[in-house]
């Protein structure tokens, strides 16, 4: 079915007229947009982004942290659209502002993990020798330690060390920064291995040898010749990494050692819900569903990117 479609499409006059050589980016983009799951994933992510950004235009953060014990655990009503939590804070508004923090943590944790992983992978792969064996032993050791347990230890001990910080006029609990760094610091290993593997195979490629023969400095070879060619797997790993980071933040906040209140995240809204599963289902259903939509959206987009960027399936 798909084969026939392609043939039919290529024969239309428009296609023939436009038959300039297509760039790899263009091919990847076309394939990504033809990937039904990926587009669905994009829609889900757009919904979540819209929810946390447009939502924050209607409510202020002060409202998100507003405690009103007289209205504790009130069910959804016209006043509190998605009900209130155990100390009377509005779940909808907390989910909006909590979502911003959860997404922020997901994004920045991945930036930290990509930077670390890329650095370790490039150095390890390009220099080889004892540096490589040392770094790979560390990577191996880190991979053998269960990440969640390590995160819990680090979050528990470091979470209170940083005071409140102010970003863009918003006062956030310092634990947000701590969580970003520890999630990043415990998730770089796969990236490092991907990059190292790519560097090892590219190092002997002719164009790198040519660059070396021309006397290009090592830094230039690594940054300009090798790194851009390892981008595709990096993009996929980074995308899926955001979902992992959001989940991990939710788990550690849920277990009570993550981001400290009053700063809301999807994870810590869920923290107090255990006692009210029956009486206040909105308390866990709302943040839980938002996490589900986000993670599912990211996973779909990640799969789409993997298929779109894989040169082996080039049609």
């Amino acid at each position, binding site marked *: 079915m798909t084969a026939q479609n392609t043939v039919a499409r290529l024969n239309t006059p428009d296609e023939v007229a436009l038959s300039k050589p297509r760039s790899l980016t263009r091919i990847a983009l076309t394939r990504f947009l033809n990937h039904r799951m990926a587009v669905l994933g994009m829609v889900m992510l757009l919904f979540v982004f819209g929810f946390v950004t447009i939502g924050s235009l209607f409510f202020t953060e002060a409202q998100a942290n507003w405690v009103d014990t007289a209205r504790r655990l009130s069910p959804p009503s016209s006043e509190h659209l998605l009900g209130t939590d155990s100390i009377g804070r509005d779940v909808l508004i907390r989910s909006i502002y909590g979502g911003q923090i959860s997404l922020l943590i997901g994004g920045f944790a991945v930036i930290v993990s990509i930077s670390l992983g890329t650095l370790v992978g490039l150095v390890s792969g390009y220099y080889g020798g004892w540096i490589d064996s040392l770094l790979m032993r*560390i990577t191996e050791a*880190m991979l053998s330690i269960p990440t*969640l347990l390590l995160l819990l230890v680090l979050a*528990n001990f470091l979470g209170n060390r940083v005071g409140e910080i102010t970003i863009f006029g918003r006062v956030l609990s310092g634990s947000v920064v701590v969580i970003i760094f520890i999630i990043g610091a415990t998730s770089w290993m796969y990236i490092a291995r991907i990059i190292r593997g790519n560097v090892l195979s590219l190092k002997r490629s002719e164009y790198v040898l040519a660059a070396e023969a021309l006397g290009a400095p090592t830094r230039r070879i690594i940054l300009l010749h090798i790194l851009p060619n390892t981008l595709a797997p990096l993009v996929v790993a980074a995308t899926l990494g955001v*979902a992992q980071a959001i989940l991990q933040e939710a788990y550690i906040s849920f*277990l009570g050692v993550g981001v400290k209140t009053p700063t809301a995240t999807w994870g810590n809204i869920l923290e107090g819900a*255990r006692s009210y599963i029956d009486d206040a289902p909105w308390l866990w259903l709302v943040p*839980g569903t938002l996490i589900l939509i986000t993670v599912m959206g990211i996973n779909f987009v990640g799969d789409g990117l993997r298929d779109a960027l894989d040169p082996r399936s080039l049609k």
Partner: protein
Amino acid sequence: MFKYILRRLLQAIPLLFFISLVLFLLMQATGDPISAMGERNPMSEQAKAELSRALGLDQPAIVQYVYWLIGNDWVIVNERGEYGKRKGVLRGDFGISFMTRRPALTTVVERLPNTLLLMGTAQVVIVVVSLVVGIVGAVRQYSALDNLLTGLAFVMYSVPVFLMAYLLMYVFAYAFRQWGLPYLPTGGMFDPRVGQTFEQVARHMVLPVLTISLISIAGYSRFIRSAMLEVIHSDYIRTARSKGIHERRVLFVHGFRNAALPFVTLIGLDLPFLLAGAVVTESIFSWPGMGRLYIDHLQRSDFPVLMCILMMISLAVVIFQILTDIVYSLLDPRIRFD
């Protein structure tokens, strides 16, 4: 083969030392167990210093690591000229728990059977159901059933553990109770009024096992399905069919045995991490296992117990990596080590 196993075991030793060193230094750098003690009646500075000395926490981190590893019964630890009492991890002494004042190893090992019971049962359910779902999906590709299972798997794969757990609790514990149906318990291992009977434990296990299984099955069944599809479309399956072999025999003897190979690797490598995943599930369901122990002792910076749990899981990870390689080589005749 024997040489290969021996080499892998020898390689594992430095790795484990490395893991323990990394973990130990992280623990040292991040917490102060003394400050977490005596919450209700704060200790004087002098008492703190004495306690810190008695526990050996006043030593430099690397010295503490050595004591932790090989014990301190060969050095004089106080001005009275007494030798230390600790034997070190290499002689099976993980130290004394700061919280319970009992050996850390005993504290952990007591909880281990509960975790193994929960996770072992879950693992059996996961393997059996994923195999069935995956094979059905592959054999009846693009049928209504396959599409339904695929759709479900896509959603389940992304469900966070707590959402799954709460949904199951909401339906099978609270809603069922309201509708007057037989409902399931949501926490603990048995009803203390009835006692730890087989029936009680089994009932309490249903929801946590379902929670863990449903999420894992989503990923594994997709894996089996694609492995099986790849095999079904290979030449030797076509040959087997054209020889007139019964379809069931083609699928299970010729097909499944080859499709299952990568699955063995996947399960083997994931198995020890299931122990770590127990932290969340056990906390939600108040299951008295190792994961819950970890959370309880985490809040008090109880290093000996935390290190003991972390090292046991890391050891399991390393051992399972080796076991998986060996089992794989036994199952796949194409792999030879010599």
